[in-house]
């Protein structure tokens, strides 16, 4: 192996065309975090190398370089997650989150393994929501924005038992209305997040709202296009 070259397993999050025969790939690696690499892709000859750089494939990647943009030396597919069309959209949503919320060159092994598990569930299960919630939860925890579900942010004391609470994306939970920007959530939903049990339908909506609003705060007003696409898709069917 060439000196200075690095190796890790990883997934392509996004690729865009660069010059005639190359692509710039954003790869989420296990040991080096998110990296941007240039890869040469031949579109004509069999196209096998182009297929390797599709998302949702676990690759063993060798790369080298200094600065922001590295060069890929080789990539080999280790495993692929066959996602159906709707699951693909969910996968792209996870990719979009990773792309916008993780920093380059910082290894995030827990997020990596959670991402891999999420792809596995998306490929094998028919219900996608619980897997997405679990991924969002881990992502927030690992980025240092984990939800504090024990304290009442208004009083600073432990949260008293109640049937419902107010949730504010920036401040957290409270038993009294803290004003604008907060919404009511049932205690059941808070309990589900504490136990990381995202399978129950009854509180799915509230759990989704809590996680989504917290993610939105981190995105700082940047819209998620894949989420918009979900909404457009729902509109078609109604």
């Amino acid at each position, binding site marked *: 192996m060439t000196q200075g070259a690095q190796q890790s397993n990883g997934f392509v*999050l996004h690729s865009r065309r660069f010059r005639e025969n190359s692509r710039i790939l954003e790869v989420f690696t296990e040991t080096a975090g998110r990296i941007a690499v240039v890869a040469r892709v031949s579109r004509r000859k069999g196209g096998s190398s182009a297929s390797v750089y599709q998302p949702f494939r676990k690759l063993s990647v060798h790369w080298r370089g200094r600065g922001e943009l590295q060069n890929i030396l080789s990539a080999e597919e280790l495993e692929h997650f066959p996602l159906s069309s709707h699951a693909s959209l969910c996968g792209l949503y996870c990719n979009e989150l990773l792309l916008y919320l993780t920093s380059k060159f910082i290894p995030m092994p827990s997020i990596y393994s959670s991402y891999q598990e999420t792809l596995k569930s998306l490929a094998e299960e028919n219900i996608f929501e619980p897997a997405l919630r679990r991924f969002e939860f881990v992502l927030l925890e690992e980025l240092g924005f984990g939800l504090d579900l024990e304290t009442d942010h208004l009083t600073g004391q432990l949260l008293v038992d109640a049937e419902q609470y107010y949730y504010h994306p920036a401040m957290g939970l409270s038993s009294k209305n803290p004003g604008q920007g907060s919404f009511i959530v049932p205690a059941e939903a808070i309990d589900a997040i504490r136990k990381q049990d995202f399978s129950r339908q009854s509180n799915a909506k509230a759990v989704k709202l809590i996680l989504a609003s917290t993610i939105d705060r981190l995105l700082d007003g940047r819209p998620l296009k894949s989420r918009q696409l979900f909404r457009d898709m729902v509109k*078609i069917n109604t």
Partner: protein
Amino acid sequence: MDALRCLPGVGPKTAQRMAFHLLERERDSANVLADTLKTALEKIGRCERCRTFTEHDVCDICSSKSRDLKQLCIVENPADVLAIEQSTSYRGYYFVLMGRLSPLDGIGPEDLGLDKLGNRLDENEIKEIILATNLTVEGEVTAHYISEMAGARNIKTSRIAQGVPVGGELEYIDSYTLSHAFESRTNY
């Protein structure tokens, strides 16, 4: 020379060779090239029906009366229309997206003229949609989105098959293609 570099596959060296060649030996051809480019840019626009490039308001395929009204093939690029026309016996109409849904690049349904496609589906003439978007993740998502649009209007959709290419050796084919080829095998 800088102007020539906007062409795909043309680097600084090639651009220099092209420029000198045109100036030294092919001054007449250079004039023809310049005129052709100018007229092409002025006259060629988008087809009102299928969004492909055309000199007229409606392209030749869309204005043809002899084609099958019931079938509509969805492709990503104008080049795909040519490829299908040249190598298949498909005789329906086309709709060219000029791209694909790619949330990470910020390309949404409105950028692909899917509202226009919706209006066309509402005309009630089309009975089958053939999804011939590329076999990439974005192509799949696009196909899925359009199939939902068609489903809401009770229009049948089909997706072009994917499998082993002619001359391909199984050993070298990527795992996704091979597993898909196995799953969608046909009677022989």
